[in-house]
């Protein structure tokens, strides 16, 4: 009853929102923005020249806004903790996925490729689009494929929690070493010559931190998908 009464209001507000979005993008398309405005993006691109990292987005995410990334990692950790608590991590559960032969064969074939692509995106985060967050989620989707196709596959909670703890702690430890050496939290204390820009070993701590972020995101997303996919009987 109440849904029927509320529907016109929500439809009207949705229509107004989409109309305003259409008008905004029409405005952007019709009136080209003048090119001579000095923006924050230009300043960041100028600063990026000094760090020796080919992908400017990675420099902003991991270096200029490194503390924010630490906070985002903490948010993801709290989210996975909340899902584990809500779905009762201590209950007796078994993973009963209904899978067939086709899915099992396809996942055997696809799993190494997905893992390789995830690790590639993670390690080349400072050279090409992508990075720790994207690579970690791709790795977690490979684990999810294994979870839905094989009944006997179980995620080793000891290994996953060790990886997650190690990654979270080493992020803070690298930041504190930067604080000791350069008087700046997450200071780039490793050699980061601009001459090496575009090589795999370049940018000092930036690729290391993105790989750490990838390990942490991958383990947390794997645990979230495992928690959601397993079936628990009510005690």
């Amino acid at each position, binding site marked *: 009853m109440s849904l029927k009464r509320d529907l016109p209001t*929500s439809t009207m507000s*949705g229509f107004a929102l989409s109309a305003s979005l*259409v008008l905004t993008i029409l405005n952007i398309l019709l009136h080209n923005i003048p090119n001579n405005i000095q923006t924050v993006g230009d300043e960041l691109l100028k600063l990026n020249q000094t760090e020796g990292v080919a992908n400017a*987005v990675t420099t902003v995410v991991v270096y200029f806004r490194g503390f924010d990334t630490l906070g985002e990692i903490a948010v993801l950790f709290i989210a996975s903790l909340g899902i584990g608590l809500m779905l009762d991590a201590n209950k007796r559960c078994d993973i009963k996925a209904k899978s067939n032969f086709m899915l099992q064969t396809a996942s055997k074939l696809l799993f190494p490729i997905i893992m390789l692509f995830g690790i590639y995106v993670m390690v080349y985060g400072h050279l090409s689009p992508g990075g720790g967050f994207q690579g970690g989620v*791709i790795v977690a989707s490979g684990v*999810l494929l294994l979870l839905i196709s094989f009944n006997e596959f179980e995620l080793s909670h000891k290994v996953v929690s060790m990886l997650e703890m190690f990654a979270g702690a080493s992020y803070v430890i690298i930041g504190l070493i930067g604080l000791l050496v350069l008087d700046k939290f997450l200071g780039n204390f490793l050699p980061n010559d601009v001459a090496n820009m575009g090589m795999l070993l370049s940018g000092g701590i930036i690729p290391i931190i993105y790989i750490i972020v990838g390990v942490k995101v991958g383990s947390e997303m794997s645990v*979230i*998908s495992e928690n*959601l996919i397993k*079936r628990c009987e009510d005690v």
Partner: protein
Amino acid sequence: MIGFLILSVFIGIVIIAFASVTQKKLSDAIILFMGVGLGSVVLFFIFKAPDVALTEAVIGSGISSLIFLMALKHLKEKA
């Protein structure tokens, strides 16, 4: 030409989003939501943001839709 492509993708996104909101079956709504993510991947790529496009493809229309579907399955089992 590119402006026409952007505009058509954008109008498509709006139509799919409308269909997703007004859908009666929740699983259909989630699949249409994945379509919205796919359209925004194209838009992000045209607007020269490959990082954001990759993130949207992996997180926005990939794993979050899967999490929605799994949560829907949990809800159906509880009910």
